[in-house]
């Protein structure tokens, strides 16, 4: 069998050559794929208060501005952020020791005071939450931070895909008419997970 040594030799040469060029080829191809791929992000929004409304909408609008594909899955209290009117979202300082309680008006020394109000007092005063929410809204305005309705509109304008969790809609007794018409899709975990699997960034808020 005179041909056998030749085959072995050819195979050895081919292998050697492949070892030389493959790593470089793969690297080039990966770089090309990376350059051509549109980055994507999926966010799970689970909170429905004024403060927690910010992270998903800020990140989604900014990612969209960077040219990314973005989807937000609103579940549990996060569904509140899809309501037609979100101008009355509230914040609760009760049991939230991380939240500074400062006044958004008056001279600087007054604005600098951190009002350490005991939980018992906060819980006992009717309307305390609404009062705190009003102060927060004023602080947001004073600092040139976007209004949450405005941020949501900017997200929608930029093509952010907003998805409602159908299970939570049923659980809380909502109907699709309660939410903005831009929500085209209501689905469950089994639909969201494959989306998240494909995404470069996935965040739980």
């Amino acid at each position: 069998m005179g041909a056998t040594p030749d085959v072995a030799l050819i195979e050895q040469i081919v292998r050697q050559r492949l070892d030389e060029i493959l790593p470089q080829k793969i690297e080039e191809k990966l770089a090309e794929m990376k350059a051509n791929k549109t980055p994507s992000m999926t966010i799970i929004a689970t909170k429905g208060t004024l403060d927690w409304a910010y992270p998903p909408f800020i990140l989604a609008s900014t990612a969209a501005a960077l040219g990314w594909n973005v989807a937000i899955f609103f579940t549990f209290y996060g569904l509140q952020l899809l309501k037609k009117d979100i101008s009355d979202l509230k914040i609760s300082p009760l049991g939230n020791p991380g939240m500074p309680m400062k006044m958004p008006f008056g001279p600087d020394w007054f604005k600098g005071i951190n009002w350490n109000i005991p939980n018992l007092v906060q819980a006992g005063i009717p309307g305390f939450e609404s009062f705190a929410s009003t102060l927060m809204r004023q602080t947001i305005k004073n600092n040139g931070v976007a209004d949450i309705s405005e941020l949501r509109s900017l997200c929608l304008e930029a093509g952010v895909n907003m998805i409602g969790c159908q299970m939570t809609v049923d659980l809380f007794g909502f109907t699709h008419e309660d939410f903005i018409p831009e929500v085209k899709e209501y689905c469950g975990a089994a639909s969201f997970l494959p989306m998240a699997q494909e995404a470069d960034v996935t965040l739980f808020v």
Partner: protein
Amino acid sequence: MNFDKDLDARGLNCPLPILRAKKALSEMQSGQVLRIVSTDVGSVKDFQAFCKQTGNELLSQTEASNEYTFFLKRK
């Protein structure tokens, strides 16, 4: 420096300067220059990152009396 469009982002905070800039750029032609004036100190790093990611060119950035001026050339 000459520019084709001007964006006043003073008093706006993260992420509004970037969002407004993105919107302004989308209404411009390739090669045109956008000037942005902002007061948000965070916008300095943000505009660098924005340009790096989107491929628009950051021609210059300067600071004068707590105002930041950026010149962006549309991709």
